[in-house]
């Protein structure tokens, strides 16, 4: 057991302490930060802090109402000035005292049309501020209850037919979680699987395995490799998630967003009934492929056979979400290679019958165990097969023992 841990830790450390890993870890948050920075710069470029003017003939505007702040930063807020005549307003535009004049005609309430006079397109901050100002003025005319609902917005709760599943649309986590789980699975298994594949193929071909199996059993070596490399993918993911949490916390602080994620039993069923065996299944298959072939490129090509079906439910996401009970959707959510993505997708917006969860989980765990047994067997058979391919037929037919190169 001690040696198994040594293999696991070695596999983990040697991957994590590489420039490639560090680059992969920081590249994603950097890209997000870069995208945000570009967004902010873009917003900044579309910002104009000159005052805007209003010439109101409709009589609905009250300048005592202070509109809700819409600007991202205080420096982007604009002042709203009242003009008694359209000429004085237009003159102010001409002289550059204001960036735009908003003309509300007498029939505004029936037409909703507003004329804007400007030398160039007004800043986005100014337009947003005006929209909010107009909205606040309009709802000011309504009853206090109406004002409250309009301000708060509507609250949709989607219930399943039997009432067992409900998702409040404000609780974004309920909808987001299953999507995220599928996506995370695909990311982690691709990262870890790549490392695992490389580790197995390289060590088989440079004959390190022959050295190592004189100290540890092939099973210890294989499981150490699988878990070590899987941990690398998970580490990468946790670091990304930490960045995401950091970002969301900032989002909440800046925008006073106070929704707290709520874990539900179905999430745990998905995690332990579908995702966990899914990891084992794919990792075992990666190992199997790694010992069967002679080159990394070939291994990567073969592994597409099961990594491609894995992501395929994302292509049909709209159909799955629209028809969660369709036989094809049900099949995709119990078939081992597609269940890891299809089942969470279904569960995000509908109630998956318990029996289907049980079937999917049973199939997943059974497939994972079979794949592990097959991987262990192929590992023993293939680890000393330098420069030779192993056929699946050979693995299945051979009872025990290892072929030699002699």
């Amino acid at each position, binding site marked *: 057991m001690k040696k198994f841990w040594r293999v696991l830790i070695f596999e983990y450390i040697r991957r994590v302490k590489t420039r490639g890993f560090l680059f992969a870890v920081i590249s994603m948050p950097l890209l997000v930060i870069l995208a945000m920075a570009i967004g902010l710069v873009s917003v900044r470029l579309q910002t104009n802090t000159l005052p805007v003017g209003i010439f109101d003939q409709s009589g609905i505007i009250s300048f005592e109402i202070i509109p809700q702040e819409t600007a991202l930063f205080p420096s982007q807020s604009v002042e709203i000035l009242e003009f008694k005549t359209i000429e004085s307003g237009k003159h102010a535009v001409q002289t550059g005292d204001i960036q735009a004049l908003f003309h509300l005609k007498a029939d505004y309430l029936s037409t909703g049309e507003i004329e804007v006079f400007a030398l160039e397109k007004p800043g986005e901050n100014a337009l947003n501020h005006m929209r909010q100002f107009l909205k606040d003025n309009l709802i000011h005319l309504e009853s206090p209850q109406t004002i409250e609902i309009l301000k708060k917005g509507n609250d949709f709760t989607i219930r399943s037919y039997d009432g067992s599943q409900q998702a409040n649309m404000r609780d974004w986590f309920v909808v987001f979680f299953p999507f995220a789980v599928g996506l995370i699975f695909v990311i982690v298994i691709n990262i870890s699987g790549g490392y695992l594949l490389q580790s197995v193929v390289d060590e088989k071909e*440079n004959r*390190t395995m*022959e*050295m190592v199996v*004189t100290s*540890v059993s092939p099973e210890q070596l294989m499981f150490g490799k699988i878990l070590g490399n899987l941990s690398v993918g998970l580490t990468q993911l946790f670091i990304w998630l930490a960045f995401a949490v950091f970002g969301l916390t900032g989002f909440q602080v800046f925008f006073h967003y106070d929704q707290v994620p709520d874990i539900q039993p179905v999430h745990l069923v998905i995690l332990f009934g579908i995702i966990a065996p899914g990891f084992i299944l794919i990792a075992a298959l990666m190992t199997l492929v790694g010992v069967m072939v002679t080159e990394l490129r070939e291994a990567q090509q073969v592994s597409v056979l099961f990594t491609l079906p894995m992501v395929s439910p994302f292509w049909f996401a709209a159909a799955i979400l629209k028809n969660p009970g369709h036989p094809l959707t049900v099949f995709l959510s119990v078939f081992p290679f597609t269940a890891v993505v299809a089942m969470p997708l279904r569960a995000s917006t509908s109630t998956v019958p318990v029996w289907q969860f049980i079937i999917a989980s049973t199939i997943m765990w059974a497939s994972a165990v079979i794949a592990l047994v097959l991987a262990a067997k192929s590992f023993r058979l293939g680890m000393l097969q330098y420069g030779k391919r192993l056929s699946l037929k050979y693995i299945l037919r051979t009872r025990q023992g290892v072929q030699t*190169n002699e």
Partner: protein
Amino acid sequence: MIATEVRNIGKSFGEIVAVDDVSFSLYEGEILGLLGPNGAGKTTTIRMLLDIFKPDHGEIEVLGGLMDEEKKDRIGYLPEERGLYQDISLEKCLHYLASLKGMESDTIQNRLNSYLERFDLMKNRRQKVKELSKGMQQKAQLIATFIHHPKIIIVDEPFSALDPVNTQMAKDLLREERARGTAIMMSTHQMNQAEALCDRILLIANGRLVLSGNLKEIRRCFSKNEILLRASSPIPERIAGVTYSRPENDQTRLFLKEGIKPGAILAQLIQSGVEVEHFETAQPTLDDIFIEVVTGKNKAA
């Protein structure tokens, strides 16, 4: 004392019989040479000893019992092809391989420093293995084999890629281990190295053990009635009891008739006034024996 006892082991892969009914013992404090042509079954035999393969039949006893996890830590193995992690530093690679032999970190570091010094690799310890020359990698592989002070050492072509200085160093190391009581099995194609180091040899061909025993006895057994002679005066063309002669470097090889004793030839030469500088009963080299046995002209058989 017997370190490894092999009894009638055999291993087949499909229709191919790789090892067929091989038995031998490996004793503590000896170097046993495992010789044989390519594809003879040497590597399969070694892999069975190391428990990488299970024999189809027969038994292998290691250090007084069947192989287990604990005994694996007391065996050192140097494969024919280098088996080192290429993308990590030499020090990390050796540290890891030693840790898999159950050694604690402090002990590993102390011994590693000492071996790196001895093999002149200290300055290369932070280099990636793939950046090292073949010779350096072979020295690293030797360190991985010896670092945990095993009771049994199995080395497959230990001197490949080593220059004469490092070959000597490796030989010294093997001799030191033998003196310490370690049982060593050495597989090699370099007959001169086997002659220089091995106490006993096993010769395997077509999966079967065709020759085994003490090197001196084997040589005597394969010895032909031949003499190597060097003289400072001309050697007579006709010598009684000699069928024919052949120059060989600065010497002459004399092929004696059956039953003729070398002493009689020496006496005859001195009587005829030949100034003898060197007179030696020629022993067959291990190369000669190997070729003779493997090509089927086996005198012993």
